[in-house]
């Protein structure tokens, strides 16, 4: 494979760079627009480097839409708590399915696999009615509790724990740790790579979710960022400088998390990738 001719190599680099540009241009364009004053936006001039560079849009979005910090808080709160619960509960379930014997285990496992196949739209309407009955519309628990487990990651964690060395748990048991103590003090800390992969995917799922908050959160102070952004767009239809600034603010946290967990990301993908 290494014996590539240099012409072939150049050709490959051209392809890679072209596609890198195709990927980057929308982001660069959005970033550049977020630093332009409105006058430059409406003039229709196409320039990636702002003629009148300004940070004002980033200030204005917080002034024009005073709910912005609130939306950000809602998003961070729901995503963080939801992810934390998912990581613990999915791992517990995966562990039980991999290691413990209890009646109904096989049936439960099959049900969890079946749930993977059912599109969310089927449960969307009844879940709305159930949450309404509980008085959980416009609440954090309405967003978090129904999603505090995830069949995909229960399955992933089960696969992970099946290959997990038993000796460690046996040693912990000899040291007098209970099963639950062993799980939290010995098993979970050693499952870090799997937990990290799970964390990224579940966090992204909560953070980027549009449909569920759209249904559950009708009070604008309870919006999450994607919903808020959509509303914001409706209010400032041609203020693309504001909309792009808001979009950039919203994208940053996920990029940071990705940078932090990057190396686990690919691993996690091959874990979920059904390999």
């Amino acid at each position, binding site marked *: 494979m290494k014996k590539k001719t240099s012409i072939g190599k150049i050709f490959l680099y051209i392809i890679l760079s072209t596609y890198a540009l195709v990927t980057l241009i929308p982001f660069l364009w959005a970033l550049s627009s977020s630093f332009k004053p409105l006058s430059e936006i409406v003039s229709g001039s196409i320039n990636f480097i702002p003629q009148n560079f300004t940070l004002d849009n980033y200030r204005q979005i917080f002034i024009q839409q005073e709910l912005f910090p609130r939306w950000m808080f809602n998003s961070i709160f729901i995503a963080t708590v939801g992810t934390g619960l998912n990581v613990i509960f999915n791992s517990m379930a995966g562990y039980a399915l991999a290691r413990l014997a209890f009646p109904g285990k096989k049936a439960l496992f099959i049900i969890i696999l079946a749930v993977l196949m059912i599109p969310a739209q*089927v449960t969307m309407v009844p879940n709305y009615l159930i949450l309404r009955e509980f008085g959980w519309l416009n609440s954090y628990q309405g967003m978090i509790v129904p999603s505090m487990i995830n069949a995909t990651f229960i399955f992933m964690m089960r696969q992970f724990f099946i290959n997990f060395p038993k000796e460690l748990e046996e040693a912990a048991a000899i040291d007098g740790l209970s099963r639950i103590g062993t799980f939290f003090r010995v098993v979970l800390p050693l499952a870090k790579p799997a937990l990290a992969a799970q964390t990224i995917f579940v966090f992204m799922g909560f953070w980027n979710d549009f449909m569920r908050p759209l249904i559950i959160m009708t009070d604008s102070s309870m919006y999450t960022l994607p919903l808020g952004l959509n509303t914001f767009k409706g209010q400032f239809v041609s203020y693309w400088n504001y909309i792009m600034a808001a*979009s950039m603010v919203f994208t940053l946290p996920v990029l940071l998390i*990705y940078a932090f967990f990057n190396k686990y990301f690919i691993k996690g993908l091959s874990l979920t990738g059904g390999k």
Partner: protein
Amino acid sequence: MNRKYSAKALKEAGQGYFFMSPTLFVLLLFILGPILYAIFLSFHDVRLLGETAYNFVGFSNYERVFEDQRASIAIWNTFKYVIIVVPCQTALAIFLAATLNAGLKGEKFFRIIYFLPTLTSSAVLTLIFMWMYNREGLVNFGLETLGLPTYNFMGDPNIALAAIMIMNIWATAPFFMVIYLAALQDIPDSLYEAAELDGAGPIRKFFSITLPHIKPITSFVVIMGIIGTFQLFDQSYIFSGGSGGPDNSTLTVVLLIYQYAFKTMDTMGYAAALAFILAIVILVGTLLQRKLSKEENLY
């Protein structure tokens, strides 16, 4: 002895249920219960105002699909979307993965850039593309520079869905690319070396070695693609402000379900029926794909 054993088994079962308890709770209350509830709803006329009232209507919610003009538009749009987007994004993902896997320097750098769309939320991506698709936006500027015709991407019913397709192929392909990359790295170099000795060029190698080897992954990617594309919602909702316009051209099945469930009165039962039809279509699509890829293996 026997008693002691059963006490131990009992303890383990208790621990098992303890570990499963959060999952069981959500499974029963928010997944299995709602599925049964959804079946119930789909056979009823649901009134939410005042006292919630259910009126048994048999199969009429399901029959209504055939008379509903908007339903047939939504199904047709979704179908077009799936048929075009799934092959394109899969092919692009394979192409990118194969190029990245050629052992060039800077692979990591390109990989990080390519992954950006996967990390960005659909809401943000849609807004960025709407800004680029603007009448006097970046895309039209590019087309004009190249001497090509410009389009009213968001206002022209013939173009709007295609605009969403392009955006989503661009946004989803890198995710599948990463899955392919892992698989490509598992193909032994010796196979390629042997093929080179036999005088196979890069294209021949790609079709005779790479493609057959990643077939199971392709099957997985296509199934994931089918499931994902059938559920298109965020992008068309944001693109059209929730209406599915212009002229119903971005109306998808899920958007229609949403509208019937939450925007029009007394059509919740019908929405539930539509959701079941969608679930069955997705299931059939998935099974069909599985069957097709198995048959290909026979050659």
